[in-house]
Each structure stands twice: as C-alpha cells, then as structure tokens.
C-alpha cells in the first residue's frame, strides 16, 4: 500500500485534481455538444438538403427541357404543315388572280382595240369627207380659173354652178357621216 501511495505521489496523482479534470471535461462536452456539434449537424443537414434540392431542380429542369424540346419539334412540325398549306393556298389564289387578271386584260384589250377600230373608221370617214370637200373646193377654184379665161363672168357662174351640181351629184362634195 505504501508503494502504491509512493507511486501515486511520484506521478502527482491527486484526487481533487482528478475530479477537477473530470468536471472540466463534462463542462467542455456540454458546451461543445450544445454550441458546436448541434449547429454543425444542422448546417450540414441544411446544406445536404439544399444540394439535394438543387440536384432535384436540375433534374426537373432537364426533364422540362426535354418536354420543351419535344413540344418545340411538334410545334415546328405543325407550323411547317400550316405554312405549306398557306403556301399552297396562296399559290392557288395567285393562279386564280393571274387567270382573272389575264382574262380582264384580254377583255380590256379587245375593248380598246374595238374602240380604236371604231375611232379609226370614224376618223377615216371624217378624213375622206374633208378630202371630198377639199377636192370640191379645189375643183371649183381650178374650174373657176379656167372658165374665167374662156367665159364671161355670167357664163362662168352658170357653168360653175352646173359643175358643182354635177360634182355634188357625183357624191364628191357631200360630207360623209
């Protein structure tokens, strides 16, 4: 027993110090448990939840993107179909408009030609009438000139009147309508 006491004294073992260290450790454990381990565990848990949520969100976004891609393809297909239909309709409508326009243009051209023809005929008639009148006047002046040299004024008027009658009777001096 004495040897044991000597050994304990040699190592400085003291009951009070021993108990003090146990109490110190108990207090330290309490402090660390409450103010360190618990908050760390909570923070780690929170972080893990956030990471999981982030990964889940990323997965959801990926899925949504896939769906959106499929929808895009579908919409594009449908739009292309609609566009083709519209192009077809437009082509048909252009064809029809073109045909109508051609027909109208032809009709108008025919009418114009007809009117032009009529106008030309009228102008021709007018011109020939004018030429007739001019030729009567010319004949009159030629005959008058010739007759004034051959006949007296009185005879000349008689011959001239007869000649005019004859010319007019021949249809040269009448205006054509």
């Amino acid at each position: 027993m004495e040897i044991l006491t000597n050994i304990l004294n040699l190592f400085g073992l003291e009951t009070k110090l021993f108990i003090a260290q146990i109490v110190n450790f108990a207090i330290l454990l309490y402090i660390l448990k409450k103010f360190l381990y618990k908050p760390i565990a909570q923070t780690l848990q929170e972080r893990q939840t956030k990471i999981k949520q982030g990964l889940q969100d990323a997965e959801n976004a990926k899925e949504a993107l896939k769906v959106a891609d499929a929808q895009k393809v579908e919409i594009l297909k449908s739009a292309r179909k609609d566009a083709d239909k519209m192009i077809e309709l437009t082509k048909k409508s252009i064809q029809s408009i073109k045909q109508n326009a051609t027909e109208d243009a032809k009709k108008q051209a025919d009418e114009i030609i007809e009117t032009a023809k009529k106008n030309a005929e009228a102008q021709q008639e007018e011109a020939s009438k004018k030429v007739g009148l001019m030729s009567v006047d010319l004949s009159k002046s030629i005959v008058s000139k010739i007759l004034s040299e051959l006949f007296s004024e009185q005879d000349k008027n008689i011959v001239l009147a007869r000649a005019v009658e004859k010319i007019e009777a021949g249809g040269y001096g009448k205006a054509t309508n």
Partner: protein
Amino acid sequence: MTLAPSILFNIGSFPVTNTLVTTLVVDVIIIAIVLAFRASLALNPNGVQNFLEMVYEYFYDATKEVSSKVEIIYPWVTTFFLFIVISNLLGQFPGFESIRFFSAGSGEEGVPLFRTATSDLNVTLAFAVISIFMCHYYSIKHTGIKGYIGRFISFKMFPIFMFVGLLEFIGEFTKVISLSCRLFGNLFAGETVMGTVSSMFAFGLPLPFMCLELMVAVIQAIVFAMLTMAFMSIMIQKH
C-alpha cells in the same frame, strides 16, 4: 522535468498546478474557437467553420462505419480529440514552458507556469476513466443489465467462457491503464526529449524532434479518440 506537475499555489486545500492552468487555457482556446465558429456560421463555410466541419465529419463518418449508435459516440470522441490535440499542440509552442512562476516554495528558478496538460497523469487518467466509465454506462443502457453482466460471467462451455469473462473483466482495468499511460507516456517522453535536446543544441538539432513531436501530438489525440470510439461501439453492441 518531474513526473508530477508543479503546484503553483493552493486555493484552500485545492492545489493549482501548471497543467491545470494549461487545461484552463485550452478551455479558453476551445471556447474562443466555438465563439468564432458561431460568429461566422454560414451555409457556405469559411476558415474556422471549415476546420471544425472537417473534424466533425471525420469522426462522425468514422463512428458511422463502426457503430449504428453514432449520435451517442461521436460527441465523446470528438471532444476527446479536440481537447487532446489542442493541448498537445499548445505544448509544442517554443517557449511555452519557459514562462516561470515564482512563489514561496518554488525556489530561485521558479516553476513553469504552463505544462502540457496531457503530460499530467491526472488529466490522462481522468480522460481514460471517463471513456471507460461511459462505455460501461452505455453498455448497460443499450444491452440491459443481463447483457452487460453476460459479457463477464458466462456458464456456457464451463470453464472456458468463465475464464474469458474473467479476462474481459481484467481487460477493462487494463484499458484504463493503457489509455492513460499511452497518452501520458508519449507526451511526457516527448517533452523530456525536447528539453534534453534543446539544452544540448539550441539551434538545428531540435527541429526534427519538433517535427516528430508535432506528429506525435496529432497521432496520440487520434489514437485516444479512435480507441474510445472502438471501446464504446464494442460495449454498446450485444455480446
């Protein structure tokens, strides 16, 4: 350097030793670290929080690998580690033991004001007793009194298991001795070697020993924590 810590003064009949003062310094450092952690606690960790999370996760994961009762074991293990590692590393600071304290009985040279806490058998023995006592407490709590006694007394295959039980019983005492003496021996021996080498060669030669002591400081803290973890996980499981 003596095996026993130096008594600085007495408060009544309570002796205040230099290892007790160091223990209080370690407590203050740990509380300061906790306060710094609480002040900078964020979802995106930095500095102190990073270090503490690393320690926490290391011991939590290690405990998880050996026991299903991780929530019970890891606070003990981590607290042992933090206290021992900070105490051991504090003792490696150059000049740590050079600060002298003078009192009536300390003589002309005085006594060191600080001494590594774990180089005092009072500290290591207290830790070992706490560790083994809690192992037995949790063993009774989780396996029942029958299961607990069954570890040491068994009439199956008499007398083989009876003898094994006896060995187990003795083993519990040797656990306390091995845990406390390993930590105390390593740290005390390290300090003695450092003191001797430094007194012979002030420059150069102490450097490799300092590196070795730094390693010993961390390794011994891990060893103590891991052994506590192993003992607790074994005792909590049904025999």
